[in-house]
């Protein structure tokens, strides 16, 4: 069996990503379209929340991806700091804008959902606040990468920022459990059947989550290959200038 470290080779990574991308893109579109159409058109209203329950198919998957993207960036940053594989640092860089967009979707759909249910667009609730801080960390992370010219220095500093930001990624997931206060409810998905969302909403929601995950993987592969090419272009241009 091939070692995962083989993919630290940019050529091997690019070749594999280009093979996987069309399949992942098709699967993502099929899963997302099926899940959203199923959820929007073929599920009933909730007895308390009415038709706003349909927002769950966008809000929960995007919030899940907002947190998990940062955790993926953390893993990639640690690999960079420990093993100095450039591909892992570039993968973290490639994932950040995807995570930032997921966070914006979670924040916006949450505000739109919150207005009719809580009577307010926003509250300084532990989960909402930690999510907002997570979004600011995404912006800071993206800005730091762009602000530093040397790729290795940028990778070092953004990795440290990523480790610090992980506290807020975890807080946005567990804030409700820690403080047990605020407007936001606990997790919608649970292994405990009593706490889990009703089956009629659960199955299309799972499909939407699968769609978001597949879209994330496809986008990160595409964007990592882009970063690898951009890095090689910069290296060749620098060599050309030196000659």
């Amino acid at each position, binding site marked *: 069996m091939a070692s995962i470290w083989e993919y630290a080779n940019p050529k091997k990574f690019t070749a594999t990503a280009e093979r996987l991308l069309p399949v992942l893109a098709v699967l993502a579109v099929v899963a997302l379209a099926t899940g959203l159409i199923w959820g929007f058109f073929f599920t009933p209203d909730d007895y308390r929340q009415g038709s706003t329950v*349909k927002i769950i198919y966008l809000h929960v998957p995007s919030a899940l991806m907002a947190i998990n993207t940062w955790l993926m960036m953390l893993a990639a940053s640690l690999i960079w700091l420990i093993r100095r594989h450039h591909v892992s640092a570039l993968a973290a860089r490639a994932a950040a804008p995807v995570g930032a967009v997921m966070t*914006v979707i979670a924040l916006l759909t949450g505000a739109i959902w919150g207005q009719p249910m809580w009577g307010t667009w926003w509250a300084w609730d532990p989960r909402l606040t930690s999510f907002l801080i997570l979004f600011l960390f995404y912006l800071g992370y993206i800005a730091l990468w762009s602000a530093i010219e040397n790729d290795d220095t940028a990778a070092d500093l953004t990795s440290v920022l990523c480790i610090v930001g992980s506290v807020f990624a975890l807080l946005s997931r567990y804030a409700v459990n820690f403080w047990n206060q605020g407007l936001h409810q606990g997790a919608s998905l649970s292994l405990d059947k009593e706490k889990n969302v009703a089956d009629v909403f659960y199955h299309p929601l799972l499909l939407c989550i699968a769609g978001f995950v597949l879209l994330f993987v496809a986008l990160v592969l595409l964007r990592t290959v*882009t970063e690898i090419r951009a890095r090689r272009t910069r290296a060749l241009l620098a060599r050309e200038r030196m000659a």
Partner: protein
Amino acid sequence: MMPELGKYAGAVLSSYGVSLLLLAGLVAVSVWRSRRTARALREVEERVRNG
């Protein structure tokens, strides 16, 4: 075909609208930048190869 969304129609439709727009924008920017970078690399590699 359109489900009856009642008084929450604005909230539900705007959630879907804004989310799909953001996702489409993210995909479009990623694909556009990927193509542009691939083209730039091809050009530089060709120049380097031809001296």
